[in-house]
């Protein structure tokens, strides 16, 4: 696992790395499930366990994530969540200023899943491989 994490230490500029709490049982996740979880459509992983999506407030990794996995612009992504909030249909994922803060939250929160541009092999989270 450590070797895998070391290999997955940095995403190229066109992609992000998905990190999850260590209690998340799935090791891979489909692109459609990622989109569904981060847009609030789904609240569970494929094994039925509860998913807690967390996001970055902005930056290159957030833009790459939104473009590649949600097929939206960051502005559209924000508007969709605002719609969910103000219509009473959803609660905004917790958003972080920095990747280190996001990783720390994911490490401490059961079911949490987020994305970062790089992760150190020592991080106390697991990485999830997206299936495209």
């Amino acid at each position, binding site marked *: 696992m450590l070797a895998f994490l070391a290999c997955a230490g940095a995403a190229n500029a066109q992609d992000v790395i998905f990190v999850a709490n260590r209690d998340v049982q799935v090791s891979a996740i489909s692109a459609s499930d990622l989109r*569904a979880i981060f847009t609030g*459509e*789904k*609240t*569970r992983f494929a094994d039925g366990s*509860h998913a807690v999506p967390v996001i970055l*407030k*902005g930056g290159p990794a957030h833009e790459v994530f939104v473009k590649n996995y949600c*097929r*939206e*612009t*960051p*502005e*559209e992504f*924000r*508007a*969709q969540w*605002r*719609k969910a*909030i*103000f*219509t*009473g*249909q959803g*609660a*905004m994922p*917790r958003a972080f200023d920095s990747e280190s803060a996001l990783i720390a939250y994911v490490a401490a929160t059961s079911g949490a899943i987020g994305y970062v541009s790089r992760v150190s092999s020592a991080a106390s989270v697991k990485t999830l491989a997206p299936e495209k």
Partner: protein
Amino acid sequence: MRLLASIIIVFTAVASLPAQDFAGIQFHGFVTQGFVFSSHNNYLTMQTSSGSLQWTEGVFSVSDTISDNLRVGIQLHMFQLGQLGGPNIRVDWASGDYRINDYLGFRGGKVKTVMGLFNDSQDVDAIFLWTLLPQCSYPVDNEGFFLSHLGGEAYGYIPLGKRSGKLRYVGYAGYSYLPLDEGYIKQISDAGLTFTNEPSGKTYGGDLRWETPLKGLLVGYSPMVLGLSGTAPGGSLLVPTFFMSASYAQFTRGKFYLGTEYDKAPYNEFLTLGQQQIYFPTDARAWYVMGSYRLTKRFQAGSYYSHYINKALDTSLPANYSKDFVLSERYDFNSYFYAKIEDHFLHGTGLGYYQSTNPNGLQTNSNILAAKIGFSF
């Protein structure tokens, strides 16, 4: 302006808690200030022919995720639109949401009514390019009646397989209330009948929207059944149960957006004023087509055409139609602040005009400039 000052004070205080959550509790809100100027006629109960700032809106919501399946929340809403609205705080929605799994959930309480592309979100200014949504389908002077209902709904989605997309559904039943501070009641009041309690009626309906296999293409259909009745000192209002519907489609691809909707609402309104009974037949047919493009991260532009006729009456008369061609721009200063400006080329007087603010009659055509600034967190 006193309303605006109150809203700003509340929002400034709350904004120091920037949309954060305390162990699941989230606070969100927005406030907007609008300006409208019209070349002819006074629009939406404002003195727009001389320019009006009487368009202020504020929303504050609190929600709490109690468990993996259960979420509760409430949203308070305050607005002033010319002679409509006022300092009263209205509950936009207040509901408990129990999601059994990703395919089935229930909401109960006062819940927003899903219909067409924008009914449940028509008051969420922060998410739209448009300063005014197509008034043929989403009249801002009457948004409260259709916006939400007291009752419950079941919702969820059905995956149809990789090649067939997915189906989202909502089914609901409850009661709708006609707010005393909005346009319908004002028009009835102008006719001589003043309500002290909100007319109400049973409603039920649903929404089916198919996310097609073609990425970004969504088509949907929303049927609704409702009726309305109420009594006032000196008279009554009755709208027998009727069926209305909205058919719609939208396509999004990157920075492009296209949307269209067709609405049909045939109903009869009986107004009793003392011994006199007045009958208003309506067969509302409305459609719009809209498109937009995000030119930069901060700047978005678009256009729509909105078309309304009352087929139950003589559609050659301007009072029975409204055709509006619109150009819109929006600039986002950052994630929180934005500004919008919009030009309307309005033909016909079927929507948005009131006798009390146009005592000398109406001209068929009017050009309208509408602008807004907003803050959302």
